[in-house]
């Protein structure tokens, strides 16, 4: 805080950005967008900035040395550290789906094995990826936005750049890569745990015997479903990490700006996750 009050006024002004989009290199600062500009224009301009940022990230993919050291750490933070909470959430959603399906199926004409089919396909198709996605939007998205946002407002990104380092390659690429690699991993493990949770609660709670559960799951199993789930997880991983990186990278206005970026990262991650979910379901299923 102190250093911002000490800082010259022109420093905070420069924390916004050049109003031209550099042709030869990724944008360092966000272009100015006064609130007098219509919302729709600001949205399109944000989309444009986001695309330029991501293109910059893609163009630095070849600079392996830039993000090599970070990718392990990021995979750890995005993936392994999120495993316990993801497993807990999917286990519970699997268990709850089992109990609620059993509760809703009162007809004696419907075999109990249907419960297994419903729980398995819901987990594989939707819940596994979406529950994991929501947790990571909150956990990973907010963290990324806060980290990068803080680096932005404390000039750490400028410091990186001034050293001659590609800050996009150094900060964004490893996080997005970690997201798109680890998210499917989390999805697979989470879905496995979720189905196991449903199976366990179903058999221990007397809703459906384990054998029936698995029979139903196998009977209605579509080989494309888990592939679709992994595709979804891949897209969600990209959406969450890239949106959060974007929010953090263009954070502005000190601690408050970082807070705003963090909240928006979590919220927008969820929104884009749901949009991507719908688009994928409409196009691939």
């Amino acid at each position, binding site marked *: 805080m102190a250093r911002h009050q000490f800082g010259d006024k022109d420093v905070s002004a420069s924390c916004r950005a050049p109003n031209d989009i550099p042709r030869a290199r990724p944008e360092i600062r966000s272009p100015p967008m006064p609130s007098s500009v219509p919302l729709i224009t600001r949205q399109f301009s944000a989309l444009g900035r986001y695309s330029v940022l991501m293109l910059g990230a893609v163009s630095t993919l070849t600079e392996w040395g830039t993000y090599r050291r970070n990718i392990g750490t990021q995979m750890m933070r995005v993936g392994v550290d999120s495993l316990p909470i993801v497993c807990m959430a999917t286990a519970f959603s699997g268990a709850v789906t089992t109990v609620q399906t059993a509760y809703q199926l009162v007809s004696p004409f419907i075999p109990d094995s249907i419960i297994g089919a419903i729980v398995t396909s819901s987990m594989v198709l939707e819940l596994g990826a979406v529950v994991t996605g929501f947790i990571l939007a909150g956990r990973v998205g907010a963290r990324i936005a806060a980290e990068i946002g803080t680096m932005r407002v404390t000039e750490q990104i400028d410091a990186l750049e001034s050293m001659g380092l590609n800050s996009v390659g150094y900060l964004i690429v490893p996080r997005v890569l970690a997201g798109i690699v680890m998210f499917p991993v989390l999805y697979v493990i989470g879905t496995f745990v979720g189905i196991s949770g449903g199976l366990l609660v179903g058999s221990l709670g007397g809703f459906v015997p384990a054998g029936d559960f698995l029979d139903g799951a196998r*009977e209605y*199993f*579509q080989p494309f479903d888990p592939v679709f789930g992994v595709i979804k997880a891949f897209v969600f991983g990209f959406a969450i990490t890239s949106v959060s990186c974007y929010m953090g990278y263009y954070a502005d206005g000190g601690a408050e700006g970082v807070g705003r970026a963090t909240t928006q990262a979590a919220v927008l991650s969820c929104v884009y996750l749901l949009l991507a979910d719908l688009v994928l379901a409409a196009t691939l299923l």
Partner: protein
Amino acid sequence: MKYSNELKVGISIILAGVIFVLGIRFFEDLPLFRTTYDLETELDDAAGLIPGNVVRVNGVTVGSVDEVFINPENNRVRVRFHVDRDVPVREGTETAVSGLDALGVVRMDLLLGPPGGEPVPSGGFLPNRSEPDLLTSLANRAPVLLDQVDRVMEDLGGVLTSSRTQLEDPASDVRMLLLSVRSTVGALDETLRAERRRVSSILTNVDSLTGALSNAVGGGDSLAAAVQDLRGLVRRMDATLAGLDRTLGGVDTLLGKINRGEGTVGLLVNDPSLYRRTDSVLVSIEALLADFRANPGRYLKEMRIVDLF
């Protein structure tokens, strides 16, 4: 620290990969570690078969369906599926789709070829044995069945008609037969009557002969014995004649009975209501057939019994 991080990341990636592969294999009814091979078949009607449906051999699940699509070359349904490597799919193996789509339990059965045949290679093609379900087969066969019933009825009508014609026609074979039987019997009777007189006269001649002999011999014992024997012979001949006479009487009785309308042939010949009854049966069968043509559904359930034959 860094090493352990990377180790954890690596372990979780590998764990996820293993779960993904084994999970899919498990839910696809693939053996978790053994390999499978692909086969194809072609059907007229997939009957709701979708990828993921199980493939069974004699009720044992051995694989599942991978892909169902319309073959653009012949508009038939092409089905790609896989079975366990150790299932003996040999030449002559056929496929059949069964189950009810409405209940979502469609499956594909493999009807294995005879043991000892050439094994079908991976990617091989198996013919489909059309085994439509019960209702379909009934519906398919209904016109044939109707034709058959129709034909039987026509035949029956023809038989009955010709029977009646035969019986009514004075020149018909049955009638001639019966008449010839009667005339034969009459002729036989005639002959026997004529012969009796001759036998009687023979016997009288013999009697006079023996009397003359007796007188001539003067009561010799041997002659008397000979005559005695001769008398026995004649008596036995007489008995024979009597049997013939009884037989003739039986024939006579038979004919009489036929004439009176007793026995099957008599019934046929003499019963005037029989034709009428047959006729009414035919009429009612005709009504039945008409009704069947109008409402086949009412009879389909019963037709199933017909199909079982």
